[in-house]
Every structure is written in structure tokens, then in C-alpha cells.
């Protein structure tokens, strides 16, 4: 006989998962309806049935190292079908939160961002920074039209955001190393470097997400992702361009980069509003929403809304409104950036590597094709 395995239930882990959205975890009676209902659950290592019992048992290491946490796209079909109301989709969401916390660098930031009590603190930091800039920063030269730079000088913002970006990149790098190491100990054998390109392609096309049962969910997410990608490109180009001196903001509306930026903003706004509406309206509560979900979604949509409003009020030269709106925009964008490795934002990084680490993926074939592949029930010869 093989050696006895010692189970080490982490009861605090169970408590945390149950407190952060997985409250119905213990109702699961392991029927595995969820594993079949899920279109993304692979045959060789189906989820989320196994993850449910591991969570019930508090097997934290086995769960944190499991790429399946990230293969789930949270459409909620498992929760809808669950005969016991155990809400596997929400439990996987809670487990992802736990993973983000566990991989967080520095660790205390993970706990801070996950805690609703710390919310005032999270916003107090950027609020004070930007109030200080508005108050003490040397004012730029007077311009023919009102510009945000009159109050928030560009060099200072550049320095601030490059520092934050550098820190965030470092935090993500450490988080990803932790994530990959953990997955390796859990036996994920996929070659990450090889899997990265296919994973990125699947992410950009939402090939997996479209297999899910909730089309509005995947459409909203796709638009958000594309809009965000567009704005990330614009932000990087504008940031570097301004610093290098070949770009001078504000760009005219007819400028190509500006057109691209505005188009991206509209796309992400549409996506974000779809996601927001889906979460708010969700009539059968197929997808549970927690503080963690709301924090990320609200900051993201807030950034886009205040960005668009700031641009419009600037074009109107409404001095009384444009600076306060821009101030809020800065606070939100700072929060989105700085807290990215610890908020739900981090799923962007972890899901990508998990998809790569989980190995090659092919969409589930249509019925007719599976009919050709499927074997008869028994291995014994039958008398057809």
C-alpha cells in the first residue's frame, strides 16, 4: 500500500472563502452536475466539483496551485444547475480572490485591497497626493485655453505614474513568479512560454469565454478588454511621447492617437456598462457579486466615465467643473493602477499564465463530431 496521505485542513482558509462569496460552499454534496454543465471544464481534469470538495476540506495548497480556478470564466451555469444551491461559480470566485491575496507582493497590500474596511484608506492615499499636487506644485505657464496641466503639471504626473507603473510591474512580476511556482508544485505541466501565445490569442478573441452560457457576459467582458487594451496603448505612447518631447497634450481631436483613444474609451464604457448592468440586474442571481467585484468594476467604470467627462468639460472650458472632475479621474486611475496586482484586475495576469500552464486547449466539438468519437458503454463486445 502507498503511504498514508495526511490531510491538513486550513480552517481559517475555509472561513475566509465562505466569508468572501463562497458562503454556500458546504451545501455541495458532490454530484458533479457542475463539472458537466460547464462547457470549459476539460475531460481529463474537470472542474469545479473537485475544487468544491477541496474547499470544503480546506486544502489550500491544492487549490492555490490549481489552474482550473482561472479557467473558469464565471458565467454561472454551474450555480444555476447546482441541485443544492452550493453556488460553485461563486466559490471559484472566492478562491480566485484568495489566490490573488496569496500571490500579492507585498503581502499586506493583498489583505488591504481585499478588505472593505480599508476602502477609505485606499482612496485617501491618492486623494492626498493629488490635493498636494494641486496645492503645492509649481504652476505651469498660462495657456491660451484652460488645460489640466495648469493645475496638475505634466512632469509631476509623469514622474508619479511612471513610479507607480514601475512598482505595479514589479508587484505583478513577483506575483506571477509566485503563481507559477505554486502551480508547478501542484503539477501543472503545461509549457508556459509555449502556451502563452495561444493563451493570448484565446484571450483577445474570447474564444473560451464565448463557449460559456452567458453571451452578454462575454460580450461585456470582450469590449472592456479591448477598450482597456486600446487605452493602455494610448497611455503608454502618450506617456513616453510627452516625456520624450515629441507629443504635446492636449492633442487636437483630429489627431490619430486622440481618435483612437476616444474610440477605445467608448468601447470600454459600453463593455463596462454591460458588465455593470448584468451584475445589477442578474435576475436569477446566477453570478454572485462581492465587494471585490464591485470595487474593481466601479473603479474601472469610474475611470472611464470621469475621463470622458473631463475631456468634455475641458472642451467646454468649464473651469468650475473640469478640474474637480479631472481630480477624481486622477484619484481613480491611480487606484486602478496601484491596486491592480491586488484587486480583481490581477486576474488579467493570473488567468493568462494559468491558461498557458494548463496545457493545450481545444473547443468542445459539436454533438455530431462527439458522436463519432464516443465509445459504446462497455468494453465487452456487444451483439449489435
Amino acid at each position, binding site marked *: 500500500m502507498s503511504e498514508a496521505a495526511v490531510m491538513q485542513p486550513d480552517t481559517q482558509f475555509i472561513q475566509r472563502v465562505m466569508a468572501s462569496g463562497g458562503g454556500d460552499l458546504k451545501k455541495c454534496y458532490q454530484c458533479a452536475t457542475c463539472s458537466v454543465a460547464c462547457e470549459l*471544464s476539460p475531460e481529463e481534469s474537470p472542474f469545479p466539483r473537485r475544487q468544491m470538495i477541496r474547499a470544503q476540506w480546506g486544502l489550500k495548497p491544492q487549490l492555490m496551485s490549481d489552474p482550473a480556478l482561472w479557467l473558469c470564466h464565471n458565467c454561472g451555469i454551474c450555480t444555476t444547475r447546482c441541485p443544492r444551491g452550493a453556488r460553485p461559480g461563486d466559490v471559484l470566485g472566492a478562491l480566485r480572490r484568495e489566490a490573488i491575496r496569496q500571490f500579492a507582493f507585498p503581502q499586506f497590500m493583498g489583505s488591504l485591497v481585499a478588505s472593505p474596511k480599508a476602502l477609505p484608506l485606499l482612496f485617501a492615499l491618492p486623494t492626498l497626493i493629488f490635493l498636494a499636487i494641486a496645492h503645492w506644485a509649481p504652476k505651469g505657464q498660462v495657456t491660451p485655453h484652460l488645460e489640466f496641466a495648469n493645475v496638475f503639471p505634466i512632469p509631476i504626473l509623469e514622474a508619479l505614474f511612471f513610479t507607480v507603473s514601475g512598482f505595479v510591474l514589479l508587484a505583478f512580476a513577483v506575483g506571477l513568479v509566485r503563481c507559477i511556482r505554486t502551480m508547478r508544485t501542484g503539477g501543472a505541466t503545461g509549457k508556459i512560454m509555449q502556451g502563452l501565445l495561444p493563451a493570448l490569442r484565446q484571450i483577445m478573441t474570447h474564444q473560451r469565454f464565448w463557449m460559456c452560457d452567458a453571451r452578454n457576459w462575454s460580450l461585456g467582458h470582450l469590449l472592456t478588454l479591448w477598450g482597456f487594451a486600446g487605452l493602455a496603448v494610448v497611455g503608454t505612447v502618450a506617456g513616453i511621447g510627452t516625456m520624450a518631447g515629441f507629443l504635446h497634450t492636449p492633442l487636437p481631436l483630429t489627431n490619430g492617437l486622440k481618435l483612437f483613444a476616444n474610440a477605445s474609451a467608448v468601447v470600454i464604457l459600453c463593455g463596462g456598462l454591460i458588465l455593470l448592468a448584468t451584475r445589477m440586474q442578474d435576475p436569477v442571481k446566477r453570478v454572485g457579486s462581492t465587494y471585490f467585484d464591485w470595487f474593481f468594476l466601479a473603479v474601472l467604470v469610474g475611470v472611464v466615465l470621469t475621463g470622458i467627462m473631463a475631456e468634455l468639460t475641458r472642451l467646454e472650458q468649464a473651469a468650475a467643473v473640469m478640474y474637480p472632475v479631472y481630480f477624481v479621474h486622477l484619484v481613480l486611475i491611480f487606484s486602478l493602477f496601484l491596486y491592480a496586482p491586488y484587486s480583481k484586475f490581477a486576474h488579467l495576469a493570473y488567468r493568462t499564465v494559468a491558461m498557458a500552464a494548463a496545457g493545450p486547449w481545444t473547443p468542445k466539438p459539436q454533438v455530431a463530431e462527439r458522436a463519432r468519437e464516443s*465509445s459504446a*458503454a462497455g468494453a465487452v463486445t456487444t451483439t449489435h
Partner: protein
Amino acid sequence: MSVPSALPTFRNGKPVLVIGGGIAGLTTALEAAEVGCQVILAEKSPALGGRVARMHQYFPKLCPPTCGLEINLRRLRENPRITVLTLAEAEEIRGVPGNYEVTLRLSPRFVSETCTLCGDCAQACAAEKPDEFNYGLSKTKAAYLPSGNAYPARYVIDRAACPEGCKACQEACAYGSIDLSQKVERKTIQVAAVVAATGWAPYDATKIDYLGFGKYPNVVTNVILERLAALDGPTAGRILRPSDGKEPQTVAFVQCAGSRDDNHLPYCSAVCCAASIKQATYIRKLYTQAQITIFYIDVRTLGRLEDFYASVAADPKIAFVKGKVGAVEQDPGNHDLLVTAEDILSGKKKTQRFDLVVLATGIVPQTDGLPAGFALDEFKFLSVPEGRAGLYSAGCVHRPEEVSAAVQDATGAALKALQCVSRSSQHG
């Protein structure tokens, strides 16, 4: 300790009304009548026997229900204290324990006691309707005998299935037994107690859309399989798959098809595991090469049924897979079925091909049309009344249970009803 000086004489008391003539209602009526009580047995359908009459075999003995029903029907025929009313429903119950007034609605049968079962009426009848006894697998004429063993052994005319104004059966009957002018009647009776034994219906499996019942012809339910296995069923006991009449060589049983599911029936229906294990033996007996897979969450065969489970599980051609079926799809080419489940013990998800899929659908208590006064529990079963009540229940309308338990339950309900009769005859 005081002992009653004399045994109560139920003869002087009011009768007991039993609603429902299945195995539980029959048993209640017989047990009460055999100690001397007057009993009125009201059955909604045209014949007694209920669900049990449609079974092929009982578990775990694998014997047919007909012999037990025959014994009970003989007891019934020999007992003058039981009044059997078929096509009868209780509409209203007024009064208090020991003194109820019940309105019965008696639908016309259109066929009198002089019916000789010659079948000329059915011959003459042109209208067809689904045969309810066979769960719609076959058809009967609108003038029909409910089943081969029907009690009362008399034809019945389903006027709802007749063409407007048709009198062919009445004209064909040589004995003048048919009177199509009969109307619905109402009758008021005085009773001391009422026992509802209105039984159960199989859960409507079309509501579990991912299991394909109603969409794919070769997905059947467990009650349908009983009729396919029954010698008096539509296939004369040969289990054939509906799409092409082929003898199935691979059969999947889907346990908890609706039961233990908050989206359908939140409770365990108690009998489906043993029923599927029993039905696996039907198929193995008919087709010696057949491969059977039973997909389950937990095999719930309690008490002595555990041995039955063990003996069937020892059959190498019967596989038990722990994991609920989450999808049944159809091969568009040949109507074979693709069944997907996660085998929890191996942790792999598999799609397998089967000739026939049997859904182990659960028990839904039949309380529709029951007059007000009975209390329902959280799952819509009749709950057990507290204290000196007069409205009791027996059988599957009261809790999901197997036949032998329903019979014991019925005996208990008869005793409660007798106590009520006894109290009322002593005090009033």
C-alpha cells in the same frame, strides 16, 4: 389503570372515507373493514390498483404485484362493509373529527354492472386516446377496459375523447349496458374520519431539459420502463427502444432525475435507487449480453435492500458510476444517446454512447383536487396531523416510500381512523 369495559363496536359508528384506491387506499379500507367498520372507498379513475397495478415486479423479491393485488381484491369482494366508488372524487369536507359531511363528485362511467366484457363497444368505437395505463405508450379506444386486470371489471367510456354526438358504442352493446345520457352526480355522505391515499405521480421529466426526455425518443422514465417490461404492456414484456424497436444492448440509468434537486424536487424520492437496480435485472434477464451503467450520487438502498444492491452490483455487466449525469444528447444519425458525467472516483469526465437511457424520476405527491382541510408539509406531502384529528393520510401522498412501507403506513392510518370512529360512537 383503567381498561375500557367493552371493546368498541365499529358497526354502530359512522363509516370511514378512504380517498384513493391504490395499494395504500385499498389496504386502509380492508384493514378498517375487517374489524367491522363501514368504509367508503372513493377512487378517481375507473379502476382500483393505482400505480402498483402498472408495475412489472416488486423489489427486492422480483415478484409481480398482481398476486398481492388479487388477494386484496378478493378480500374486498368478500367484505360487505366496503362500498367502492370509482370515478369518484371528494369535493368538500365539512365538520369535525368524528362527524364529517363529505360531498363526492361521481363522474359517469356510462357502462352499467351488466357489462360482460365482450368488447363490442370498443370494436364499434372509432375514437382513440392515449392509454394512460401505459403512460401514453399505446392507444385505447374511447370505449375501453382500463386494464386486463381492472376492478371493477367493466368497460368505461371517455366522453371527452368521443366525437361530438357519437353513439356507436351504445348501439353496438347487445346487453343494453351503455347509457350515454348519464350525468355527473353529487352525493353527500356522513363519515367519522377521512384517509387520503391519493398517491403519487412521476416527476415531469421534461422539466429537466438537459436530460432530453420528450426530445429524444430513446430517453424513457422508470415508470415507462415498468410498462415496457410488463407482460401486459405495450411490448408484451420485451424491452425495446422506442425509436426503432431495437433490443437495447447498452442502457444507462440516470439516478436523481429531478430528486434531491432544489430546482426540481428537493427531497429524496426514496425508491428510485432500488427501482433502477431492479430494472437492471429485467434487462439482464431479457438480454444476456446487455451492458448496464447506473449513474448515481449515492446509492440509497436502506435496510434489507442493501443485500439486493450488493447482489446486483456483483453482476459484471452492471456498472455503477458515481457522478450525476449532466447532459444527454442524441446522435443525430441513429438516435443513440450520448451521456456525459464526471466519474468522481476517477476524476474524469466521460461521454458514453447508449442505446437506451432510463431516467429515475421521483415521486410527486398527488394532492390536486383534494378537498381543503389537509395540511401540507414543506415538500407538499400531506403532513401527519397532531392530536385528535380526523383527517389522515397513507402511502406516497404522505411520504415517498416503497410499496411494503406504504402498506404498513396504511395499516397505521386505518388504526387512527378506527380510533376516531370509536370515539365518535362512544360520545355521540
